[in-house]
């Protein structure tokens, strides 16, 4: 108990609170700026943390981490550009809310949902970390495959239009995901001789092109001599109102739980978490049909899920030193440079450090809220800039952002190219969100599936011997069947 109180006092020291604040600030800014993701931000700042005190360094890293998660949502809502993969889902309802003049409440709900879910996951982490971490070790390649299948299936439910077209977009996404050098055999696929494409088509250029630039191109059409701005209804209110809270309560609750479970397991990531929570919300919400047209719970659910997943991802790291995502691997490197080896030894030998880290996560969550709520007013003002001035800035934002990822001009070209593709997709009524999510899931599915087959000597039986994988696959199957079934039921009701 003494150690806990001690750790608490360490965390609340003014300089550590300052570090938390700086971390969150930098993280949020980095998250807002496209291209430079949390990995890059953390590694940029890693050396600065090397010098200082261990706890301070970790606090700042945690702040950056949480900050980037939230920052990505800001651009998703304001200008329909996902700051990172998990924010793609937030774009769907978030941007529509912004167009309705409700950007403030959307941003606010995203912040609150993130905070609540984040705190929830840290609490759970403190209480039940070790047994949960054990569970993480039961996840192998077959389970990853099943998770990817689940993700792809749920993905379809994100669509609000024709099912066939949704599946087509998923197929195109998978095809794009194939581009690059095959990791298992080293054979180049669809690279057309461009060595820049050997690592595949990056997510960021595609996202910024399909969402950012395409949106701009579509809006540019409407700029005429007289009207200099896109019709965005006047901003009504800066924070979510009571009705919003009522609508989002369930979303936040299920988002926290779903996100936590998915974030916990290796193979689960914030993307799957946000998709799953969103899909679930569509199913269980009374106005499920409207989710996708600008409903506040469509923002609350994925935001809660991805923050909860973020917290849960710390569990395997802290209890076993197993990093489940590249960002975690970075944090691990950061820890190790300080001589902090995460694992059961950490709790025993350096409890103050362990608890210090946990509490810094709480603080990080609070800091996010404190930092971002006042900023909402500022962000909303950005929308007031006349579109004639705003849209070139958005284009620039996307282009420069994609360059900074890898210092590669090819990626900038890709962004422009996908901008055009996205424009035509809009005109022909195909949904870009599905393509992007499939682009991410496809390679995961292929890699895990192939590996599962290698492990089992080439037959699919391995799946039947693994209960966890089978259950996840069954859930996917149920989901898949539920679409035509619900449609049939609705038709019958309408006819009756």
């Amino acid at each position, binding site marked *: 108990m003494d150690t806990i109180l001690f750790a608490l006092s360490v965390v609340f020291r003014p300089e550590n609170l300052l570090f938390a604040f700086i971390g969150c600030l930098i993280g949020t800014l980095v998250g807002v700026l496209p291209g430079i993701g949390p990995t890059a931000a953390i590694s940029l700042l890693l050396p600065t943390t090397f010098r200082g005190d261990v706890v301070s360094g970790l606090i700042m890293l945690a702040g950056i981490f949480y900050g980037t998660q939230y920052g990505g949502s800001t651009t998703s809502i304001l200008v329909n550009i996902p700051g990172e993969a998990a924010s793609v889902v937030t774009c769907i309802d978030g941007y529509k809310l912004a167009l309705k003049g409700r950007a403030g409440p959307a941003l606010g709900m995203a912040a609150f949902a993130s905070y609540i879910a984040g705190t929830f996951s840290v609490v759970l982490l403190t209480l039940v970390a070790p047994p949960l971490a054990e569970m993480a070790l039961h996840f192998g390649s077959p389970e990853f495959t099943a998770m990817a299948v689940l993700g792809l299936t749920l993905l379809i439910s994100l669509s609000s239009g024709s099912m066939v077209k949704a599946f087509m977009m998923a197929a*195109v996404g998978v095809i794009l995901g194939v581009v690059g050098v095959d990791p298992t055999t080293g054979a180049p696929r669809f690279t057309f001789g461009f060595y820049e494409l050997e690592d595949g088509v990056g997510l960021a250029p595609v996202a910024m092109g399909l969402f950012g630039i395409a949106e701009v191109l579509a809006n540019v059409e409407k700029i005429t001599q007289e009207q200099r701005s896109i019709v965005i209804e006047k901003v009504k209110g800066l924070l979510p109102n009571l009705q919003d809270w009522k609508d989002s309560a369930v979303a936040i609750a299920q988002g926290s739980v779903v996100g936590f479970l998915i974030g916990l397991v290796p193979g689960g990531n914030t993307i799957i978490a946000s998709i799953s929570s969103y899909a679930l919300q569509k199913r269980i919400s009374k106005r499920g049909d409207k989710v996708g047209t600008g409903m506040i719970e469509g923002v609350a659910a994925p935001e809660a899920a991805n923050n909860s997943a973020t917290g849960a991802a710390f569990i395997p790291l802290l209890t076993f030193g197993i990093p489940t995502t590249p960002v975690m691997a970075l944090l691990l490197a950061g820890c190790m440079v300080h001589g902090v080896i995460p694992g059961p030894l950490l709790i025993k030998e350096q409890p103050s450090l362990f608890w210090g880290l946990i509490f810094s996560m709480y603080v990080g969550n609070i800091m996010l809220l404190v930092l971002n709520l006042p900023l909402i007013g500022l962000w909303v003002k950005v929308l007031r800039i006349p579109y004639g*001035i705003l849209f070139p800035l958005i*284009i620039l934002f996307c282009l420069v952002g994609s360059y900074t990822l890898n210092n590669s001009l090819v990626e900038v070209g890709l962004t422009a190219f996908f901008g055009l593709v996205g424009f035509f997709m809009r005109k022909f009524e195909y949904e870009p969100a599905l393509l992007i999510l499939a682009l991410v899931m496809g390679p995961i599915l292929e890699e895990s599936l192939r590996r599962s087959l290698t492990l089992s000597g*080439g037959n699919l039986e391995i799946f039947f011997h693994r209960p966890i994988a089978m259950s996840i696959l069954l859930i996917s199957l149920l989901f898949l069947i539920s679409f035509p079934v619900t449609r049939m039921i609705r038709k019958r009701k309408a006819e009756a």
Partner: protein
Amino acid sequence: MNVRNAGSALFFVCVGVAVLWKGLHLGLRSDQNMGPGFFPILAGGALTLLSLLLFAQTIRHRKSAEPRVSFWVSRNAWEKVFLTFLVTAAYPFMLNLVGFFLSTLILLIFLFRAISRLKWWVVWTAGVIAAMSFYFVFEIWLRANLPRGFWGF
């Protein structure tokens, strides 16, 4: 008939077939496992089938009264889109040639003037301020190492 659906469906059929074909080249199997061509074949095949399905659906409903929505919003709209896209696509080439600051300035000035039709002084002020801000944020603060032109800047 929904021409857009029919047209795009046919387009995707072609894409699907191309991917399928390339996938077959890469090989369906390798060492008792899925070869590098497996997924392309699967996805390409799926795309082809789905596109054919979409096409069939569109043909089936061709008699239904669908209002003819014009493709472009206004008569000259496509020029604006085309020009915007052109300068966007030219940007990476400009970056390579004249470096970040100048390319950005050119892009902004062109868009502000040609598309948004702002007054010249607004164009220049906003352009310079924006280019400088981007420069400071990305190059100085984030040390992103933006491209330099042939004169080193």
